[in-house]
């Protein structure tokens, strides 16, 4: 189990009716068939500091050749879905999605993760939480794991976290969480000008970073805006990055998987840009027509 020594909970292959048991007993995660997931807390021993938030991590270890999906899975697949159950007054925030990889080939291209990945989410502890009481978080996780074929997996994970007036960091989990945070896209700097020039058949995404970027990949946050499988052409540009993104065939913006592509309501192209250096940033580029106004 290695680095996730303090992760609590056990994952069950789909169809197993058992619920997760076992408070603080540290168990190996028995996996789905092609990977497993464990739930970890950064402040394992005393996470629940009243009025603060504590970081939780769903740590996936995937079999070689298998992958799971980003929040926008691309052309196929589905992102992991988590239903949290926490005590009254507590809440869990949205998942912070690490920068994905471009997966697949040919005309079907997806966005996801291989190897190991940790999905971080914040457990918000109410002011009224009493030191000495116990908090817990249960994560009902459904995910799709694919190689050539896809398999749905699910797992019920539970972690218990005593409330203390001052949280103690759990050194054994520090590495896991530090590594997870290092894989999150950073917010784009305010001074960077981000613009998506609408050129008819494609967008020219331009990011003024001040440094010439020779290689970059863009991951669209929403489906239905750009053609995932189209090559992204990085154009030479001394002031930063210019990359062409071919518009989706049915060129309308959409929100979620399986939901209607219901028009370009947003006025921006949002996503993550990963540079050749390995650094990645969240970008929201306002769409501007490249055609001259008259």
């Amino acid at each position, binding site marked *: 189990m290695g680095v996730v020594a303090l992760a609590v909970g056990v994952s069950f292959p789909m169809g197993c009716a058992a619920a997760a048991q076992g408070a603080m007993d540290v168990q190996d995660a028995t996996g789905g068939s092609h990977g497993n997931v464990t739930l970890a807390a950064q402040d394992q021993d005393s996470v629940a500091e009243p009025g603060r938030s504590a970081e939780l991590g769903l740590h996936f270890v995937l079999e070689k050749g298998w992958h799971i999906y980003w929040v926008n899975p691309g052309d196929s697949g589905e992102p992991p879905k988590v239903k949290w159950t926490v005590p009254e007054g507590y809440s869990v925030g949205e998942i912070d999605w690490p920068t994905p990889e471009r997966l697949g080939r040919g005309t079907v291209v997806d966005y996801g993760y291989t190897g190991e990945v940790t999905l971080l989410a914040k457990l918000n502890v109410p002011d009224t939480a009493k030191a000495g009481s116990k908090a817990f978080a249960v994560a009902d996780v459904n995910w799709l794991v694919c190689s050539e074929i*896809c398999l*749905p997996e699910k797992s019920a994970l539970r972690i218990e976290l005593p409330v203390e007036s001052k949280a103690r960091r759990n050194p054994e989990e520090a590495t896991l969480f530090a590594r997870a945070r290092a894989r999150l896209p950073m917010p784009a700097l305010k001074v960077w000008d981000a613009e998506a020039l609408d050129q008819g058949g494609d967008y020219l995404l331009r990011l003024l970073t001040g440094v010439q970027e020779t290689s970059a990949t863009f991951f669209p946050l929403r489906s239905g805006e750009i053609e995932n*499988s189209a090559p992204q052409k990085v154009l030479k540009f001394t002031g930063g990055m210019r990359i062409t993104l071919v518009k989706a065939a049915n060129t309308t913006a959409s929100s979620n998987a*399986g939901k209607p592509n219901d028009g370009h309501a947003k006025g921006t192209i949002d996503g993550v840009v990963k540079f050749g250096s390995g650094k990645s940033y969240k970008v929201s580029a306002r769409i501007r027509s490249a055609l001259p106004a008259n």
Partner: protein
Amino acid sequence: MKNLKNVIVLAGVLLVAVWAMASQGVQVGQPAPDFTGHDSMGQAHRLSDYRGKFVVLEWHNQGCPFTRKHYESGNMQKLQKEWRAKGVIWLTVISSAPGKQGFVTPAQENDYLAKMNAVPTAALLDPAGVIGQLYGAKTTPQMVVINPEGVVIYDGAIDDHSTPDAADIPSSKNYVDAALTEALAGKPVSDANTRPYGCSVKYAE
């Protein structure tokens, strides 16, 4: 140096051109590209022969959990039965390449259709992925609806619950059912383009 730059630019242009040829896709409101496919009974079907009728194309892979969701629950068969009774042509298209999940011989497909009580007009075997690539099919299931004039009026998911769990079906909005209901009543299709969900189509590499 200049030559090298030109070569790089040309390579980029070629890459985009090759991609554009490989992935044609369809657009809602545009004519559905014509094709001829052979079904599991050895019969040829030309799309344009069905002009004058509504046609549903259903991308299929019997091993894909998302396809299984709609077949093991009987949801897909119910749709096939209901709409074929109203004169709609239903073509199941299998674009899995040999050796890939979902690839079937004609006999295997006929066994499957019988076992599942599936009643498409025909199940087209497209192991070279020609029809799939022509339509830009990405997932199984992916659904396309074509009107009697041969125009694409729906392209996308089967419904609005992108899970492999059959328990979600009763609370789902079925886009194909909705599109056909509206179109047969002479109304425009409200949700004409959605993101298809499911497994990737298992094309040849």
